[in-house]
């Protein structure tokens, strides 16, 4: 009686199974390798294409020129300084608030429902899209819920002045300073002439409020028709008595005089204020921009600081408390110094997020062509990502090269930030456990 050799059968079966499994193992390894390589390749393709396109535009003039409609004369001086101002305000407001929150939640808070709720709430805030923060910033900071009058009443806010926009008979866009118009005896504070032209608004939007009085002499800004950046100031003479603004789609302006001094050159901001002067509401100023970014990165700062504090071994705390220190003394002398490298790393990474953020600032103030470096908290601004967005969105390839150049600058700044963060993580982090 020949019985099949049991070990032979099993062995054969296992062999076949083993071969198949070895194959699937190898296939999967290749699959993984291809997936990972693809991810890395994408990164290199991205960096390479941008570098190729933008390298030629990164020159010294690129850093020293303001934006212009002429690509070869364009630069990033305005957005660069705007980014510096906004990020400084963001850091000053977000870091103390975020680190304070983390210290409270990790070191002081009792483990109860309120603390749990605050923690959950912070997690959820981290998931809110940044554009929603932009809307909150617009409503809460730029307009202050409409509680301080009129930043949103007139159509355009340029520099410190509110302008209404009209289209003249010739199709020119005319901006009339609101201070020239009697708004039921309620005069808007007189400001200086605008330094900025908003690129996108070529269509006139008459605001639906006070009438233009007949024969008022108003100061207007004229869009020059030769396609250059400059706006001219002119003294205009309004005709058509008390035209309701809501119907004055094309109020007739009789331009009586173009002031030669300002003709054909950018009007620069000339308000002499200290850098910290503030007026309410904030409007689309660097202050409002910085505070809006603060909202965006606050959850990030809090969560990373919490993690850094959590990583401090509790034996340090117990030691401090056993020696009779109060909670705050313990935090100040033991926990915080031990957690500072982690907190700093998180803070720097959060700031690098703030530098790259464009959507909330787009909502806050639209895109501005800035011809001046911000001088105080109420200055208008634009930031690097917004300038990139504007250049990238244009059809001409010469602007795309500018966008790529600005991206290179942005990426170098981010790389420096990341490098500092990695350095701090490597060098300063002591092993305490």
């Amino acid at each position, binding site marked *: 009686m020949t019985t099949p050799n049991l070990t032979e059968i099993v062995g054969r079966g296992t062999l076949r199974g083993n071969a198949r*499994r*070895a194959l*699937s*193992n190898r296939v*999967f390894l290749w699959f*993984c*390798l291809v*997936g*990972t390589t693809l*991810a*890395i390749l*994408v990164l290199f393709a*991205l960096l390479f*294409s*941008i570098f190729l396109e933008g390298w030629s535009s990164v020159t010294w003039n690129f850093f020293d020129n303001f934006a212009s409609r002429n690509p070869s004369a364009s630069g990033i001086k305005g957005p660069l300084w705007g980014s510096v101002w906004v990020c400084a305000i963001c850091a000053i407001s977000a870091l*103390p608030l975020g680190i*304070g*929150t983390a*210290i*409270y939640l990790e070191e*002081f808070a009792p483990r109860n429902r309120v603390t749990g*709720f*605050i923690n959950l*709430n*912070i*997690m*959820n*805030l981290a998931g*809110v*899209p*940044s*554009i*929603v923060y932009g*809307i*909150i910033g*617009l409503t*809460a900071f730029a307009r202050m819920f409409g509680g301080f009058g009129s930043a*949103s009443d007139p159509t355009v806010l340029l520099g410190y002045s509110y302008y209404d926009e009209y289209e003249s008979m010739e199709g020119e866009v005319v901006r009339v300073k609101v201070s020239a118009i009697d708004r039921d005896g309620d005069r808007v504070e007189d400001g200086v002439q605008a330094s900025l032209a*908003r690129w996108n*608004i070529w269509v006139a*939007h008459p605001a*639906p409020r006070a009438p233009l009085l007949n024969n008022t002499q108003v100061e207007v800004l004229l869009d020059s028709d030769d396609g250059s950046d400059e706006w001219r100031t002119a003294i205009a003479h309004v005709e058509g008595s008390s035209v309701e603004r809501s119907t004055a789609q094309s109020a007739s302006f009789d331009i009586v005089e173009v002031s030669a001094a300002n003709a054909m050159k950018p009007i620069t901001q000339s308000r002499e204020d200290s850098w910290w002067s503030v007026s309410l509401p904030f409007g689309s100023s660097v202050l409002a921009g910085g505070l809006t970014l603060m909202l965006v990165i*606050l959850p990030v700062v809090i969560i990373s600081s919490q993690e850094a504090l959590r990583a401090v071994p509790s034996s340090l705390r117990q030691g401090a408390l056993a020696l009779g220190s*109060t*909670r*705050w003394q313990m935090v100040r002398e033991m926990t915080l110094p031990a957690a500072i490298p982690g907190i700093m790393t998180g803070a720097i*990474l959060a700031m690098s997020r703030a*530098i*790259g953020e*464009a*959507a909330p600032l*787009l*909502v806050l103030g639209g*895109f501005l062509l800035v011809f001046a470096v911000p001088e105080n908290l109420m200055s208008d601004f634009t930031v690097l*990502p917004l300038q*990139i967005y504007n250049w*990238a969105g244009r059809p001409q390839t010469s602007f*795309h090269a500018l966008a*790529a150049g600005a*991206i290179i600058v942005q990426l170098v700044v981010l790389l420096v930030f990341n490098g500092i963060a990695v350095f701090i993580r490597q060098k300063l982090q002591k092993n305490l456990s």
Partner: protein
Amino acid sequence: MSFGRARSRRWRDWSERGIRWSLFGASFFSVFVTFAILVVLARESYLFFGFDQVSIVEFFGSTEWNPLLGGTQHFGVWPLVCGTMLVTVIAACFALPIGLTAAVYLSEYAGPKTRATLKPALEVLAGIPTVVYGFFALTAITPLLQSISPRFGNYNAMSAGIAIGIMILPIVCSLSEDALRSVPRSLRDGAYALGGTKFDVSVKVVVPAALSGIVASFLLAMSRAIGETMIVALAAGGIAQMTAEPWAEVQTMTAYMVQIFLGDAPANGVEYASSYAVAAVLFCITLGFTLVGRYILKRFREEYE
């Protein structure tokens, strides 16, 4: 001597209390921010539904979104939601498989040296501003797609979707990898002891064990994709329509808000107010994703000792 000591002690108690309260105030600020978001969105949406042209029924029932053009305005939010979903699904199809395989590779296969080079590269990818991806979509991905098929227009959902996919790839990868690495060694050892290959161990043991974390990372990445603004504003176009065609031009909720706030609409008008209602919808959707992700993480987490 004892007098001075008592006074300094009282001073210390007071300062301790003051510091405690100010830190509590700082942490309460985040609650206040949430409150402000809810109040602002609710109030402005309420004002929006107060306009004559709008009704809640139309907003959630109609499939026509036509807020700017003259004539009859239509405010049905579905085309915007549909556009957002189309772009998000494309991004997910791109990012979730690649992200997960890269995570499995990093956590199960790669040696410490490979990981030490690949992880920072992914971190760099995560730190790139989204406007850069938008530029990349517009100037590199769209021409590539057009060379493949002429059906792709200058603005299309596919290009934006792929760019968003690249953007969320590091999020999927690093969060999934965290989940995979938190699976205890003993499970792997057991599987190897039973004769499993590396493939068997990672796909049949480690991935299922980390599934809740992986799904949560997917949801978090999707919520990022839904809220992404600059890429779609640059590459997806501006036509709000109900379509599932990847070569079509679509408008997402975020792109619509950008269009409004860039000055296409007069302030105080109904179009302007509509952006708040759209923001409220966006907020609810992303909040839903976050909460579901958190619930899955909590409810389905396998507890190991």
